[in-house]
């Protein structure tokens, strides 16, 4: 084992390298590109026995990835944002082939308007694609999840692709100390892919991906995928035990942070959960009983674990770094469904959306969330998702809007940032909402 300072992207490349992948189809996209550049450099230096091939786009890249996996190659690929959406048809196709591979997505907000900063709308667009989906918080977790991902994907009880998500910029380009395991230990955790049940070979012709035109038979196969991904929960738990034994690190489907006696719990995913944990620490120092649950395994959705962890709490705030227009935060919807039949479910559940397009989340926003949860009562009228933004950010937005409207000759300076009058900003939001309705 060696300890290195690695970006999230480099950690992903190390995951693929240690997994001794046979095949890496690639296409560049910000902020994922460093992964394939790293793998290409290793490949060209002769340090990577697998084959590295660049494609004409992610639709082709993902088709090739699935086809290679169907042929028996241990396959790694990576994309981000528009690339994931461009390849969406292929995602559904290759999961339907029931082939194991690991796809890394480096989260980035979706166009339009086109942007670069991270949020989870890209990866959650793929939530129904038939992939196991794991969201990493740290660079270490990126590497570890790729190794676990192959073990899960290649388990015959699962045999679907695994998507490992990391946040663009905040994780992809941030260096953290990462334990890079020894190859021998990795081989013990992840033996070579036994693809006896898969593969195209002269001695055994096989028809894969054939049309199924009867609805009932089609339903059967689709439901098989559901069962396979449900099976991944137990396989993930088994892999965690073995991983912990070999490497001393352990990952549950949900991470529970200081929830032991918490009356109020935040739910988050990805690298921004680290910010949530810092907020929890601050509140705990003030004597507040607040904790945080981080969603790590998103598919299979850990409904039972969440229900058990949240049963008996007074208030839950879900901070979604995504927005389903017309509904709100996606994880809040899924969590609400998981809690519905829990007798002792939290009487207060509120949805917040922030961190879109890489917008940071400040302590003041966390404080606002806590104040909303404190004030909320059981039986409150149904509330819409609340978009969080600091007063300074609101001022910035107003400045940009004003600039866009302003004639070019009227080149007055932008309004200066201000960090006060949260209440005034909120009032403006309310006005805007009222104006729409």
């Amino acid at each position, binding site marked *: 084992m060696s300890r290195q300072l690695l970006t999230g992207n480099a950690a992903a490349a190390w995951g693929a390298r240690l997994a001794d992948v*046979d095949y890496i189809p690639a296409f560049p996209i910000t902020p994922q590109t460093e992964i394939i550049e790293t793998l290409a450099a290793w490949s060209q230096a002769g340090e990577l026995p697998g084959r590295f091939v660049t494609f004409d786009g992610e639709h082709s890249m993902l088709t090739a990835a699935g086809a290679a996996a169907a042929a028996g190659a241990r396959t790694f690929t990576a994309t981000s944002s528009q690339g994931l959406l461009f390849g969406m048809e292929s995602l559904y196709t290759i999961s339907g082939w029931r082939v194991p591979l690991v796809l890394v997505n480096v989260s980035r907000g979706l166009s339009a308007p086109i942007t670069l900063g991270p949020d989870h709308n890209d990866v959650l667009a793929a939530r129904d694609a038939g992939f196991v989906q794991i969201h990493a918080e740290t660079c270490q977790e990126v590497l570890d999840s790729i190794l676990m991902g192959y073990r899960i994907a290649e388990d015959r009880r699962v045999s679907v692709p695994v998507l490992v998500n990391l946040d663009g910029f905040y994780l992809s380009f941030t260096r953290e100390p990462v334990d890079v395991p020894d190859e021998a230990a990795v081989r013990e955790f992840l033996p070579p892919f036994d693809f006896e049940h898969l593969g195209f070979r002269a001695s055994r012709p096989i028809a894969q991906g054939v049309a199924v035109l009867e609805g009932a038979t089609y339903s059967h196969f689709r439901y098989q995928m559901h069962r396979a991904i449900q099976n991944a929960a137990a396989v993930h738990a088994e892999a965690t035990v073995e991983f912990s034994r070999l490497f001393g690190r352990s990952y549950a489907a949900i991470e529970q942070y200081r929830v032991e006696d918490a009356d109020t719990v935040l739910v988050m995913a990805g690298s921004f959960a680290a910010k949530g944990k810092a907020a929890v620490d601050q509140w705990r120092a003030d004597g507040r009983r607040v904790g945080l649950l981080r969603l790590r395994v998103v598919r299979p959705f850990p409904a039972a674990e969440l229900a058990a962890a949240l049963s008996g709490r007074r208030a839950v705030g879900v901070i979604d770094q995504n927005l389903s227009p017309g509904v709100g935060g996606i994880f809040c919807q899924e969590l609400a469904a998981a809690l519905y039949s829990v007798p002792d479910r939290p009487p207060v559940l509120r949805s917040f959306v922030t961190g879109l397009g890489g917008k940071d989340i400040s302590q003041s926003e966390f404080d606002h969330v806590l104040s909303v949860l404190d004030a909320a009562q059981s039986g409150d009228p149904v509330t819409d998702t609340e978009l969080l933004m600091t007063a300074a950010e609101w001022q910035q937005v107003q400045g940009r809007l004003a600039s866009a409207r302003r004639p070019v000759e009227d080149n007055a300076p932008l309004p200066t940032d201000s960090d006060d009058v949260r209440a005034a900003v909120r009032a403006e939001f309310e006005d805007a909402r009222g104006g729409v309705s």
Partner: protein
Amino acid sequence: MRVKREHFRSPKDLPVVEYVTPGSPLCAGCGGLTTLRLMHKVLGENVVVVNAAGCMTLMAVYPFTPLKSSWLYTTMGSAAAGAQGVRDALDVLIERGKLDAADDLQVLVLAGDGSTYDMGLSATSGAIHRGLNFWYLCYDNQAYGNTGFQMSAASPLGSRTATSHSGAVQRRKDIFELWRAQRPPYVATVSSHDAVDLAEKVERARGLNGPKLFLSLAVCPTGWGFDPELSDEIAKLAIETGVWPLKEAVDGAVRHTYVPNRFRPVEEYLRPQHRFAHLFEPQRDEELLTRIQQNVDDYWAPVLAEPVANA
């Protein structure tokens, strides 16, 4: 003029063995199926067919397949990328000792003109660019046949489709030339009518490492509107009128493998097909018929002016 035949003198010389067995749900008289059957005979049994969405996708409907070889349905737009994944996987698995070299397969993309000319062009161009060692068979029936015969970029001038009721106003894309522009080792046009020409081409291409691309005029009774028993006759007329030139390009150098001694008028090919009926009824569209004939004449004029090589 017919080029010298090197491997097969007559249809009797073709392998007797069949890899496409009877009983597929495709239409009677499908020229595409005949082409696949003939091509497969020459390729041999160790093939994995990588399919793009189209008529042929309905060949393998669970739990049946008429193929003795392997099959992978991909998507409409990325069959060549699927072929790349399979080819690369076979190569790397054999290289790394994980798969017996005796288990190797030839990879054949099977795609219609809708995929080939339109949605799949990027993936195919990428595979040609990378020099992928694979076969590609486009069964070109000149429209989106499987969805009920809508216009594609392969629909010829004047042809009626479900989305060009008064006839296509554009000329077809010249996919042969688009492919050839990238200089793959082998590009050819073939026809279900000329089994020997087709078999010769497959055999000539066999030794070449890289993309080997075949464009077959897939006569289509259902879409074109003629009796299935006329399939071979229509395919023959396409060749004899000069509408469907039989040719090949080795490393970009084109030669025609058959040139009619006397070109029959294009009308003889158009008239039996319902998709061109509006050119004749209720009144003759003289202007368009002249243009179609002129396009064919213009194609052949420089070819006929060349000294005949390898005749």
